[in-house]
């Protein structure tokens, strides 16, 4: 005799109206375990979520990470500081430039190296263009995940505009490989600043279209407003950072709070504004992203202006054939597009680091998921998951 199981919209359906419920409160229910991923169209990449469902309600969620673990910290240990950049720009493939930056800033700090001023401003410019590229990706893909397919075409058109100037400068479209200890790999091509300025202007001109098409959309609002609220307490408890934390009212941005590159000057000029929201829901996270694009475009413009007025000079330092970081340790964190990205560099005076610990933003941002997803319904799962803006390579490292 098989046991008769009644699995339906029972206790999990409390809070629904009758037409949504299908069944009734009185029906017996049984928890069901549902795997989302590792290969699932609703998750980008190989993130696996083990959901325990009571009817339509998510009782528990366990993110199972590591399907894409490449042991990058171990690989760092057998590579010199130029080879590390190759790997550093690959763990979060949407913020390659910012991730490279952390490594070289750490090594420069250990060496006590002064970076030429043109390199500092160019790096700031490129980091901001990279931020725009990253955010545009999510501005396109998030609506796509919850069923609005049009915005991604506009987002990708803008991405292409900026990628073109990035490719002209660095030769790469994703893995720029353009940072070197002491500066940048090569100097800017003639006329590049004009073309970069034109690209920024073009994106700025067309950006309102993305706002018009999605941010005011009633269906989008219904799917995202008051969904997946993340409290500031949770943000602090889990070390959530970046646009997600700022959407919950946590006013923290390393560019302003612990300035690196040229950000202190930009903050003093008022160009660097930190975008925050108080709601902490999916819609707030998405709109923080949108506003950050505009801030980044302003920053990029300011950097271009500054680069035009800087006196002629080098863009990198002459390096010794074999570069060794002196014995010691340093922690260098930067505000990556997705949040805080830190490198803890321990050197024993070799040409490779003794240890290079990577603190990636997405890992902490995804760790808070069980808290946010618990009590939500399955239909909101994708909306919440997508609004955590993560890159699986950044989680699994």
């Amino acid at each position, binding site marked *: 005799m098989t046991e008769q199981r009644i699995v339906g919209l029972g206790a999990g359906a409390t809070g629904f109206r009758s037409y949504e419920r299908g069944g009734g409160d009185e029906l017996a229910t049984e928890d069901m375990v549902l795997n989302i991923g590792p290969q699932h169209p609703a998750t980008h990449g190989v993130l696996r979520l083990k959901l325990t469902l009571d009817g339509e309600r998510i009782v528990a969620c366990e993110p199972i990470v590591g399907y894409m673990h490449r042991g990058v910290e171990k690989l760092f240990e057998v590579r010199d500081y130029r080879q590390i950049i190759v790997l550093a720009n690959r763990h979060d493939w949407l913020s390659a430039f910012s991730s490279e930056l952390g490594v070289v800033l750490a090594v420069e700090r250990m060496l006590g190296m002064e970076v030429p001023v043109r390199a500092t401003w160019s790096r700031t410019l490129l980091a901001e263009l990279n931020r725009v590229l990253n955010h545009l990706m999510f501005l396109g893909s998030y609506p796509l995940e919850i069923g609005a397919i049009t915005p991604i075409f506009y987002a990708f058109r803008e991405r292409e505009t900026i990628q073109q100037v990035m490719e002209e400068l660095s030769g790469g479209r994703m893995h720029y490989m353009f940072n070197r200890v002491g500066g940048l790999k090569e*100097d800017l091509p003639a006329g590049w600043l004009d073309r970069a300025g034109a690209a920024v202007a073009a994106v700025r001109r067309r950006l309102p279209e993305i706002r018009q098409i999605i941010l005011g959309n009633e269906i989008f609002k219904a799917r995202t407003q008051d969904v997946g609220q993340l409290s500031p307490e949770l943000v602090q408890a889990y070390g959530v950072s970046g646009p997600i934390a700022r959407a919950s009212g946590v006013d923290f941005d390393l560019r302003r709070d612990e300035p690196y590159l040229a950000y202190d000057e930009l903050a003093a000029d008022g160009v660097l504004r930190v975008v925050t929201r108080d709601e902490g829901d999916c819609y707030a996270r998405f709109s923080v992203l949108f506003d950050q694009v505009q801030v980044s475009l302003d920053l990029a413009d300011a950097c271009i202006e500054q680069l035009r007025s800087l006196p002629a000079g080098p863009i990198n330092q002459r390096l010794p054939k074999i570069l060794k970081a002196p014995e010691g340790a340093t922690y260098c964190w930067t505000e990556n597009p997705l949040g805080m990205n830190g490198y803890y560099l321990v050197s024993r005076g070799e040409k490779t680091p003794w240890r290079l610990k990577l603190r990636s933003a997405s890992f902490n941002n995804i760790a808070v998921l069980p808290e946010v997803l618990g009590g939500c319904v399955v239909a909101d799962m994708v909306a919440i998951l997508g609004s955590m803006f993560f890159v699986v390579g950044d989680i699994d490292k």
Partner: protein
Amino acid sequence: MSSWGSGLLDGLRVTWRNLTRRSVTAQYPDAMPVLPPRSRGVIALIEENCTVCMLCARECPAWCIYIDSHKEVVPPVEEGARERSRNVLDQFDIDFSLCMYCSICIEACPFDALHWSPEFEYAEYDIRDLTHDKDRLRDWMWTVPVPPALDPAAEEPKEVVAARKAADVKDTAPPGQEPKA
């Protein structure tokens, strides 16, 4: 809510406006993309410049360069001079299925034997064919573009500085005593 749907209409207005614009789609196989000279497509090799110093193979983070060589004895150039031995390249393969396109080999090369070419159409049906031998790498050399001019605020490229220095020395040297190139 009287304005419900106005956001939807706003969105539709955007799509309508874009409907009247030219499409940005790249018609790739019919129209080739114009790639900047720094674009990292494929690595080209000038075999003549290579001295088999193995720096590229050693620096490569993916270890995808395979070099083999032998020594050859060159007869003395002048009477009474001793014989010289010279490295001759037998094999220079780059496995593009492993390559991470980081351009460290190109930077590491002290004799400018390696260059980037923006050429990208070398997809293969068999992964083994992605290993390009020295003849194939030499052929890519024909597609290597001239590097772009640098920003006015940039330092001069070291090649230009070196060339100018050599020219100055030549100009100032008394006739008949020009240094050998």
